[in-house]
């Protein structure tokens, strides 16, 4: 099947000062570095449904204050698209983040992430405490920690359905048939704020840069990171660094309950955005940027 040819990349408000790859088990993962401030902010991507440009509204601002590192997830952007489910395990993404810190000579960093990426940032902080000064997790996805958002449970995601209505599009058979249709539906649900046509258009394009197969492997076939709720809770409980959790009240992907559980188990702070959806960093960048900067600077002062 063919997905639309990638459009010419948009111009950027700021371009990376350095770029590189890390490679593990034959999979190359692409990263970018912006600025040279003493404190590093590593921004995790999310699943192959998007790539590092989802931070486009943060990079130019945060890199005035921090050395910002972003990377494309395996399965999208300039990173490889491995063909085995194991390569898309949460733990592989966590390890990609860790490898990139090492490759860029970074001992410790502020970690940020959205959705799956929020989960990866938290997991890295849990298993490798010296790597994390703090974690800013937006709409974090930590599987099994709490019940899945009801939107994801409306239809089975892996069997053919006799409808394409609404959330029935969240289905591997539909993805392979009409990936753009899925992306347009999904992101219009996740960015429900009025006047979001630009953010939705961007997200759809970044999704098309990847394509359905990587998402199938990552979301449907990759091994689960935790076997039980207890395992997930135990890991969150191990986090010792400060944690900031941001949650939009209209989030249609991750529940408030999950965000609250992360904050509670990590002793972190939960900031709820009224009227915001799943991607406040795209739709409310000024608020999110200031919040993240203040969070980062408060921890920087503590260490310097």
């Amino acid at each position, binding site marked *: 099947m063919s997905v639309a040819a990638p459009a010419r990349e948009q111009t950027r408000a700021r371009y990376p000062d350095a770029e590189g790859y890390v490679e593990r088990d034959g999979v190359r993962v692409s990263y970018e570095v912006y600025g040279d401030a003493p404190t590093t902010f590593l921004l995790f991507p999310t699943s192959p449904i998007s790539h590092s440009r989802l931070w486009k509204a943060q990079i130019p601002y945060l890199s005035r204050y921090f050395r910002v590192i972003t990377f494309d997830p395996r399965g999208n952007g300039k990173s490889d698209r491995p063909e085995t489910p194991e390569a898309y395990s949460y733990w592989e993404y966590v390890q990609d983040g860790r490898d990139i810190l090492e490759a860029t000579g970074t001992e410790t960093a502020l970690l940020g992430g959205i959705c799956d990426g929020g989960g990866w940032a938290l997991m890295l902080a849990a298993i490798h405490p010296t790597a994390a000064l703090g974690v800013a997790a937006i709409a974090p996805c930590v599987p099994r920690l709490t019940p899945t958002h009801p939107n994801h449970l409306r239809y089975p995601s892996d069997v053919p359905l006799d409808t394409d209505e609404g959330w029935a599009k969240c289905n591997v058979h539909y993805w392979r048939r009409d990936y753009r249709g899925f992306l347009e539906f999904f992101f219009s649900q996740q960015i429900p704020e*009025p*006047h979001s*046509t*630009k953010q939705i*258009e961007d997200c759809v394009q970044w999704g098309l840069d990847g394509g359905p197969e990587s998402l199938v492997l990552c979301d449907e076939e990759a091994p689960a990171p935790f076997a039980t709720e207890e395992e997930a809770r135990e890991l969150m409980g191990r986090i010792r660094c400060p944690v900031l959790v941001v949650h939009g009240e209209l989030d249609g992907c991750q529940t408030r309950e999950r965000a609250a559980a992360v904050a509670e188990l990590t002793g972190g702070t939960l900031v709820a955005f009224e009227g915001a959806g799943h991607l406040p960093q795209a739709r409310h960048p000024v608020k999110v940027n200031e919040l993240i900067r203040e969070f980062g600077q408060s921890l920087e002062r503590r260490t310097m």
Partner: protein
Amino acid sequence: MAVELTTQTREQTRARSPDDSGYVERDGVMVYYEVYGTGEPTILLLPTWSLLHSRHWKMQIPFLARHCRVVTFDGRGNGRSDRPTDPEAYYEREFVADSLAVLDATETGRVVIVGFSLGWQSGLLLAAEHPERVNGAVFIGPSFMGGGEPLPERTVYDFDTEYDTTEGWAKHNRFHWLRDYRDWVEFFISRMFTEPHSTKPIEDAVGWGLETDAEVMLATMGAPVLSPEESRALCRRVRYPVLVIHSEQDALNSVTRAVAFADQTGGELVLLEGSGHAPHLRDPVKVNLLLRDFIRRHA
């Protein structure tokens, strides 16, 4: 009987609130003005067609007020100004007289004027006939009558003839306004913002348009526009720097109008690629920087 089209919504919060505001009254018509910031120079943001009021400068006011003093007012027929229903109240020289009354009331000497769309008329009259008050003039998307061509699609239907279609520009019609004013406003504003991702300025501008009504708008249509000869004669009298900003894709006024206007006033012409009729709302950063640079050079 007047029909209530929409309930007045609570006014939006503003990036900057006026430091002073008030009314001037002429022939029983109250006109509401606002002043932002202090110091020199003063920028007068002129009213346009009464379909919009002074909030259409919302993207300019907070920026310009950091650099200079900004005076603006609601054109008669909308906003907090009165809504006379006599066409004579909307003659262009009434807007000029309102401008001068506002300048006097705010103790403003000379100004740089900025006009949008139909605002070219009062702007040109001010620049030509009141040189003692004007240091320079900027015109955005002017519907200049002294040269250039109308857009072909706007010549198909006559405003005063009743048609059995309401398709496209057939909405720009006296009978349709009386039938379904909101439908025309939504159509017209959608032609004002032809750029992608314009839902917010469209929503704003439709809201402003619904703050007045068909009766008032019909009165404005009864006021004559400047004739081509008069327009050209006025251009020849302009002695101050002029900047004309227009878009080649403007779907309300042909770019040829702007080319002729800049030519006849000896002004500078800036054409914006990919913009619509109201770049000051849709591409405010570009327009604001053009305004700031013009003011620095000529104030």
